[in-house]
């Protein structure tokens, strides 16, 4: 089933944002793309979602950069996993680093996937395309019940 719920991209680099958007569109993914440009903005957005308790407003997938101003990606991930309404959100770490400790920490905090942004752009867009398609088209998601 095709998810029409939005994708949430947390990315502080405008170039990467534009390239990611372009790749997703080129791959034919037409879901709304919500972009938050630092950790704090993302946190506010996620808290709002938790407050609204609207399962249809929840993103299909969160594409999360690690190095972010103010609140970093790992802290955000930790927050998502600790918030009842958000904790089942699929989170994909999308980052420049392939440092082992980043990978280990991401997975141990509950990341669903870890993708390194390749320098070579066609590899990058291929990675983004596959990610988008996978989470948007293939993955059956657990929709959290509205808590009263």
């Amino acid at each position, binding site marked *: 089933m095709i998810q029409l719920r939005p994708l949430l991209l947390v990315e502080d680099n405008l170039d990467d944002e534009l*390239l990611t958007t*372009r790749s997703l569109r080129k791959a034919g993914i037409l879901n709304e793309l919500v972009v938050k440009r630092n950790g704090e903005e993302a946190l506010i957005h996620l808290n709002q979602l938790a407050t609204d308790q609207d399962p249809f407003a929840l993103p299909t997938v969160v594409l999360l950069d690690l*190095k972010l101003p103010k609140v970093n990606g790992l802290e955000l991930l930790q927050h998502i996993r600790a918030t009842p309404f958000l904790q089942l959100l699929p989170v994909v770490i999308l980052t*420049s680093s392939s440092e082992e400790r980043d990978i280990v920490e991401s997975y141990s905090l509950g990341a669903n996937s870890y993708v390194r942004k390749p*320098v*070579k752009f066609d590899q990058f867009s291929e990675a983004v395309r596959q990610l988008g398609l996978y989470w948007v088209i293939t993955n059956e998601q657990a929709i959290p019940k509205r808590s009263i």
Partner: protein
Amino acid sequence: MQRCRKFHLTTEQLQLTLSVTNQGLYELNLQTQEVLVSPTYATMLGYDPRSFCETVAHWQERLHPDDRERASSVFDAYVNGLITDYSQEFRLRTADGGWKWILSIGQIVDRDAHGRPLRLLGTHTDVTLLREHDQGLLQVNQELERRVAERTAALEQSQMALRKSEAHLRAAQRIALLGSWEFEVQTETISWSDEVYALFGRDPSQGPPRFTELLSYYLPEDQELHRTVVDQSLATGKPYMMELRLVRPTGELRHIQVRGEPIVDAQGVLQRLVGTILDITERKWAEEEQQRLAARLALAIRSAAIGIWEWDIVSNVIIWDERMYELYGMACNTPVRYDVWANSLHPDDRESGHLAIQQALSGEKEFDTEFRVLHADGTFRDIKAYGTVLRNPAGEPLRMIGVNFDRTEQKRIEAERKAKSHQLAALNRELEAFAYSVSHDLRAPLRAIHGFSQALNEDYGQTLDAQAQDYLARIMAGVERMGLLIDDLLRLARVSRGEMQYQMVSLSQQVAQIRNDLQRIEPERQVTWQIAPDVEVWGDANLISVALQNLLANAWKFTSHHEQASITFGLTTQDEQIVYFVRDNGAGFDPAYQNKLFGVFQRLHNHHEFPGTGIGLATVQRIIVRHGGHVWAEGAVEQGATFYFTLPERTDS
């Protein structure tokens, strides 16, 4: 009775003679077994001659039971002609029941026509007294013989004891390495016990040496000593003792101790010298060894600047050596008691110092502690102290002895080292943060350049001419190369960081795995691989894998222009050490630049020939060196290259 009388009458004279000599006469009729006897015969046995009548049966009956059989058989033997003379002694019972020894001598005096005996005539002599006398004599004799035997035995025993004690003495001398000697002054002869020969290494068959020859056994300077000491003893008559060194005929040097004593006769004239020789070589060696040890200990104490102290607990007197006073900054010979010592400690250390002493005295803990000592100039010294408590048999502490030494410098170095290692750790963290930052931040702009170049090409490619497109392609290629450089630099940084995780690693398996990976990426390439089986090393599996990947990827890359490519992984030995190698028959390198192979960013080939960042071999070298091994290479242009490396054997630390 008639015949008795008749006999009586005819032999009156004889009768008288017989009675005077106290002998009884008898006549036996062998036909009738009747016996005629003289009165003495009867009185001899305490009978009244008038009523006494003798027969063979009576005689036999009167015989002592112990003599009866013998006496009867002698009698029978004579009568039957088996023996020629009849003379025997036996005991006969007297009238009062006592016993008398009787000597009976008889002779057949009448025979019939056939020679058969008819009459036997004989005498009885009372030999009781004689027998008793003889018995006494016999006893005396026997006693004498017994005593002689006893004396002989005692003599033999004492001779044996003498022989035994001589043997003992010889054994004792041999075991004690102690010989005995004598010197006769008049004749100037020396005599030696067996052991002296052994001590001098002289064959006993040669006999003892003359006095002058004896001296030649000793070292020249000891000969003089010997002469002086002996002369003095002879002059004073006093015993002497000296230690000498002798040289055996084999050249072996022995230390001996000689004791001597002059012996004078009753007139006070010197007769001889007697004495002993003791082999003290072992003792001398032990003494020398002890001196050496003492000297070594003194040297160690001096060079380690160890102070020695001794505390008489009962009198509370502490004795310090010079070094102790130096350690405590006090004038030598300042009297020290417990409180003097305690007050010289840093105020903060007095309590713990006192406690350490108390614990040592109570036996709770060894005295092994550290404290600071306050000097008059206000500076402190860090002191390490050890001590041991000496106790009486009841376990009460009597004395403590111990050492102090200065650890101030050591402490300072330790503190410095600690500060250095902190700095280093901080530096390391900084470096790590730098690498992390590089990993994240350096890539992002590259991605932008590359990404937008591609977007430009994709979206506006049709409006760009060929040259513009070529420029774009060059931009992208440059960026890709920059990306690889960053990756390799980060990898190089990574191999220097982090803990090593040692385990047994199969090089053969890792090589095979990498071969499969390389072959999968470029399946069209034909490369002959030779991989030595079962090669295992002790190392960090991840790091070793990175090193092998670099070496094998190089071999793979540099054989790419060769039709008959071959890559070998193997091992050999050099100077008894195992050396592993990766060999290819590819492009090789100019040995002139061999030393540049392992430098970062050093490349011996143009990028368009063989792409690469020039970081791979630097990474290999860093990994091998981190393991404690070496890496080097051999090669020639178009002759292939061989990369050798060693890895230390497994250690348990």
